[in-house]
């Protein structure tokens, strides 16, 4: 049950530098923008920072611009609705517009930000409920036991923690080879999406490369994948509000009916968006047909290690990958 939030000091700096200074000063400062993820934590009283820094009002962090290489730069606090409706995104990266349009509900998309969506914490019900699990700094996993409710959990790359990435747009970032621009220790660094999302073997207590004091400034989408063929499908229990059980995100370039280049990423099966490199290798250069689809089904979920209640994700994942390939025919 949710509750009135604990008391905290709220800061609303009007510049990135102001926000960074506050984060340096206060050890337990917590950053919010749309706050759709954070207020849940606060109301459940699982996380109670004494200082909250609201970066949602910083003008330089919001907006969508064209870049010189034909790509786009999306400010971290641009709302999901703005991403969905942006003519630039629709024209160059319809996959991102589509993925963002499937996030949660209209009201959440109107307030939630793209930076927050990709950086949100996992939705593992045990972790969210305040269980002292590995991810919360404890020494056990409550989801990976014979009786645990783990139908939402991971198939791949489990290392103690079996939580999955809940984001719908994070797989699109990996598929599009996006780069995250981060203000870290006074300088701006760029981190490729494939390294931005981190699994439990790197650090079990966080989902992204962001460390305390870092601020995600924006996302750089390279021109390489602009205007490519695309496919996005999200399988969830409900059409609205729900997180993906499995989602598939694909961009592809075609040449004479054959797949010239392809990037396919699967969400909801691993702690990070899972790039299906084996599928990509199988279909690159092929003309999509039913034989290729059969091959895709064979390799899509190779290496999966299901838990007690999430076996269904394996055929789901195989089917979604096959359907993505079929859409290119």
């Amino acid at each position, binding site marked *: 049950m949710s509750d009135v939030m604990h008391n905290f*000091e*709220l800061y609303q700096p009007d510049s990135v530098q102001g926000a960074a200074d506050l984060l340096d000063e206060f050890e337990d400062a917590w950053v*919010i923008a749309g706050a*759709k993820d954070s207020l849940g934590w606060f109301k459940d009283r699982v996380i109670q920072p004494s200082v909250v820094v*609201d970066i949602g009002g910083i003008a330089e962090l919001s907006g969508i611009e064209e870049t010189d290489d034909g790509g786009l730069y999306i400010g971290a606090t641009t709302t999901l*609705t703005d991403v969905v409706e942006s003519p630039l995104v629709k024209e160059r990266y319809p996959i991102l517009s589509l993925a963002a349009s499937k996030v949660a509900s209209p*009201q959440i998309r*109107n*307030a939630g930000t793209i930076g927050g969506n990709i950086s949100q914490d996992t939705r593992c019900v045990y972790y969210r409920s305040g269980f002292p699990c590995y991810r919360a700094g404890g020494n056990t996993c409550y989801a990976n036991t014979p009786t645990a409710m783990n139908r939402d959990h991971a198939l791949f790359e489990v290392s103690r923690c079996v939580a999955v990435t809940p984001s719908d747009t994070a797989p699109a970032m990996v598929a599009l080879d996006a780069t995250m621009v981060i203000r870290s220790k006074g300088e701006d660094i760029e981190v490729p999406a494939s390294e931005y999302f981190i699994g439990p073997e790197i650090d079990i207590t966080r989902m992204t490369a962001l460390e305390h004091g870092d601020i995600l400034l924006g996302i750089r989408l390279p021109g390489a994948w602009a205007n490519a063929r695309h496919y996005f499908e999200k399988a969830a229990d409900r059409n609205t*509000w729900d997180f993906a059980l499995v989602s598939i995100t694909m961009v592809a370039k075609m040449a004479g009916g054959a797949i010239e280049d392809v990037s396919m990423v699967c969400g909801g099966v691993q702690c990070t968006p899972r790039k299906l490199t084996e599928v990509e290798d199988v279909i690159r250069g092929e003309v999509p047909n039913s034989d290729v689809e059969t091959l895709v089904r064979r390799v899509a979920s190779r290496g999966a290690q299901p838990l007690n209640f999430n076996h269904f994700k394996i055929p789901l994942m195989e089917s979604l990958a096959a359907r993505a390939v079929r859409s290119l025919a």
Partner: protein
Amino acid sequence: MDSSGPYDPTLDYPEGPAIAEIAGGGDIKPWRPLHVSRRNFLRGVVCSGIVVGGASYLFSTATPARADARGVERMMSLMVNGKTHHVDVAPNETLGYTVRYRLGLTGTKIGCNQAECGACTVMADGRTIYSCSTLTHRMRGKDIVTVEGIASADGTLHPVQQAFIDELAPQCGFCTPGQVVAGVALLNANPNPTEEEARVAMSGNLCRCGAYEHYLRGVMKAAREV
């Protein structure tokens, strides 16, 4: 007031000499001013009690004095339904709390209080948001419209509200304020939505009575009339 027809609780009681006359000599004093409707009298009692008692318990006494001048100023201006209100808002206060318990706009309902159900939906700069999961301080400078601001000043219902009545959309009615705001926001942005667009726009509002089709028909009916 027309005495025939079904009982309508939304109509205010007429001013009346009734009680004094019935008492026959003025010994019995009316228990409330006669020009105040029962609904508004109760609303006043409830709201003032909660603001004076509840809010100070929840926020003020438990919040230490502002230690850092760089933090947000508690006193803020909030533009709600076209009026600017000056309110004292705690840093951890949500918009849903502010409009209900500080401004007395109790049409906005707090259902799940975790951004799932949509009963608390209000508009900020024309876009729907969950007021239960929005910090009020984030709303500085925004134009907020709650369900109280939907009907026109003379009480004429918005076409969406009228259509919901005509289509028998509300059953228990708890989700209705949120449904109204979501429907109006849709028609403001897109006066001719397809049924699919309306379905998506209303998808952030749960109705435990399951009257989704009624609400959808109401929005489509209003769209034809707007």
